[in-house]
């Protein structure tokens, strides 16, 4: 079977529960996430009740991402594994 996350093997992947409710909210965090060095890719599953933010990154700490999203005015916590 192909690797489900091919191309992401050497990166960290963090997933968070947020209150990013719509595209407008997403565009507000986009500004910070897109300009943070080390964040390679990210997306928000708006169809999920936990509005899951998924971040693929290198050398960025989990708590730093939480801090960025909170600073943009949203709730963000680690999605429990």
């Amino acid at each position, binding site marked *: *079977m*192909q*690797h*489900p*996350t091919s191309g992401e*093997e*050497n990166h960290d*992947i963090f*997933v968070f529960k947020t209150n990013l409710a719509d595209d407008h909210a997403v565009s507000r965090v986009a500004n910070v996430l897109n300009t943070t060095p080390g964040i390679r890719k990210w*997306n928000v*599953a708006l*169809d*999920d*009740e*936990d509005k*899951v933010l*998924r971040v693929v990154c290198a050398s960025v700490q989990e708590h730093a991402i939480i801090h960025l999203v909170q600073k943009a005015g949203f709730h963000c916590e680690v*999605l*429990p*594994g």
Partner: protein
Amino acid sequence: MRVRDENKICKVRQYTVSLIVEEGLDGFSMNKLAKAAGISPATLYIYYKDKDDLITKVSTEIAQEMVRESLKDFDPDMHFAAGLQLQWQNRSRYFVKYPLEVEFIEKIRYSNVYQKIQPIIKQPFKEILGKFVKNAIEKKELIDLPLEVYWSIAFAPLYQLIKFHTQRNPIGDEPFQLNEDHLKQTLQLVLKALQPS
């Protein structure tokens, strides 16, 4: 670095297929899948970007297997009768062995995911079976027909038999069990219709 857990990925595929077959695409969610498969949603989201990504990857894998099984040992230079027989065998084997996967593909056929997997299914068939049909017509082993007419005669009887088998809802009174004899009998009639007299 993350270690890939084959067991979990296998379960994800199995439950994605069975949940979508049971409840359709609209009823499917990452949380439902996580619960059914006994995996945390966080783990699912580490493996897959989101629901669409997951369904696309599972569908792609199934489509690739379906094509591989359908074309197993097949060669476009085969004699028409032998080639069609092999395709009937390959397809019936796959459909009877993996009814859930077949139903899953049917469920996603009218969704936007299907757009992404359609080339995986269409391309090899078009290439290999197109060549097979062209060869057979040139060798005068097959009458020259529009592709859709050819396909309808060549495969619709097979798919109807498989349907009777898997749906267990036959037109007769007894449950229908598709066997080699049924396949042989039907294929002979199909060949009679498609080969020049």
